[in-house]
């Protein structure tokens, strides 16, 4: 998952980095194929050289040590709103076939559960040029329609984003799960683009809460390279984030 997420970052791109696995993905990208990627953090931090320490939060002192800039939240959000952020990473409790995310009210075992909320996710989903979502793959998380749109994807598909006033160049571009990678058609609906090594298409479909379309040219996700694994092991030696 982390390696697949890292490959969504192009060299020289400006990336809104989230916490947990996305942070690790950013660090892996920086240390392998995207040495000139710039990381923005919601607390106002901009980094061109990633921290060498394992981070538990973006406000950890090692993430501020030798940062490029420590500004205000509005400073980085302003860049996001201008369209100057190429990619933003998000986690989610639930995602639906059009890439809408819910992190506000979830349900487990028929009970409503209050989740922590948007944080900066709604902002990133609205305004980043591309959004990459990471989550575990099961039928409860990948659901036909989310009950609450915390962070909009393609809404109900088609021209939904445009009709709601969202920027033209924006929206989800990839969903990286524990089983594979989903991408989106021109109609805004997700399709299975690749399966991770050892995972069958049937397994993915059985664990998805709607009838998931499958790409004509379905591929297998390339396994992590030795270099990618080295960075992950170095940055998360006790598997705090990759457990």
């Amino acid at each position, binding site marked *: 998952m982390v390696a697949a997420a890292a490959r969504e970052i192009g060299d020289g791109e400006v990336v809104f980095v989230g916490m947990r696995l996305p942070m690790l993905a950013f660090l892996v990208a920086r240390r392998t194929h995207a040495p000139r990627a710039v990381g923005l953090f919601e607390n106002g931090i901009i980094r061109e050289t990633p921290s060498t320490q394992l981070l538990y939060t973006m406000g950890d*002192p090692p993430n501020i040590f030798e940062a490029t800039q420590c500004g*205000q939240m*509005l400073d980085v959000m302003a860049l*996001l709103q201008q369209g100057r952020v190429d990619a933003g990473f998000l986690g989610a409790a639930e995602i639906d076939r059009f890439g809408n995310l819910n992190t506000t009210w979830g349900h487990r075992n028929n009970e409503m559960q209050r989740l922590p909320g948007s944080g900066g996710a709604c902002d990133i989903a609205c305004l980043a040029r591309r959004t990459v979502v990471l989550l575990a793959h099961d039928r409860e998380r990948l659901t036909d329609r989310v009950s609450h749109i915390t962070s909009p994807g393609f809404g109900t598909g088609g021209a939904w984003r445009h009709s709601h006033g969202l920027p033209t160049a924006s929206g989800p571009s990839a969903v990286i799960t524990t089983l594979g990678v989903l991408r989106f058609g021109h109609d805004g609906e997700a399709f299975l683009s690749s399966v991770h090594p050892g995972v069958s298409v049937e397994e993915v479909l059985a664990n998805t809460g709607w009838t998931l379309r499958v790409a004509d040219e379905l591929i297998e996700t390339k396994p992590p390279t030795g270099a990618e694994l080295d960075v992950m092991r170095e940055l998360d030696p006790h598997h705090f984030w990759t457990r």
Partner: protein
Amino acid sequence: MTPESKFESKLESKVISMRDAIAQHVPSGSMVLMGAQLEQMIPFAAGHELIRQGRRDLTLVGPISDILFDQMIGAGCVSRVMAAWVGNVSAGVGYCYRRATERNIPRRLEVVDYSNFTMALALHAGAMGTPFMPTYATLGSDLLKKNGNLREFASPVSEETLVAVRALRPDVAILNVQRADAQGNAHLWGSLGVALDGARASRKIIIVAEEIVEPCIISSDPNRTLVPGFLVAAVVHEPGGAHPSPVQGYLGRDHAFFEEYHERSRRIEDFEDWLAHWVLHLPDRREYWKQLGSARTGALAVKHHAFSAPADFGY
């Protein structure tokens, strides 16, 4: 004595105890901004004093709050939260928050959901003295549908729909900082989050400082004076007042404390024991610090200082 120093000596110090600052400036029913610097410099000591003094019906405002809002909600101090995210950043959900929102335990909690950007804009509008700030953020989301402080409007200068984010003016902002003088002129650095707008938007500011320094230290580096003292109501000298959150250059993050809280807040009985042990049975932050123990506090001390290069303000 120079004329300046004579003048300084006439200014009354604003330094008071945490107990007095909370007693004098944060009554029940207040709208309080805390956690403005996100995961850094969270005013835990102030929050614990609010719990000890039995505040009720507070409205808590902040982008994310880590576990401070969860504790205050569990202690029954809060009737409303205006925030983008409430939980435990490194460990997951906030169990007190869940009990309050799902089952009204210990009491009903109104939640006004923001995104980080719209919270920052609400405080920016408050700081600017304007009724709202415009944005594209939250268009198409259910936050926009459910939060009455976010309203769609037609742009008067372009053919677009935007969201007006209504200004927030908290009654009081509580900000932990690295150092301040006795007038509340405060230096802070590291994670700024929404601290500057939050301070200006609020009607009162309480500064909680790791160190109280002479005014000449503050004026030697005026770009770092991010809160001017004339806006400040009270200054509290409370080293370690942000624990378990970090203070750049002063205190590391106590990751294990967040994990422990996660486990001990899962069941309400355990949370009540936790609250008694770490808040209600302690008189103040000094005793809290003793209870943490020297092994733990020593491990959080800064290991490698990294001073910035001095800036030349000469002329």
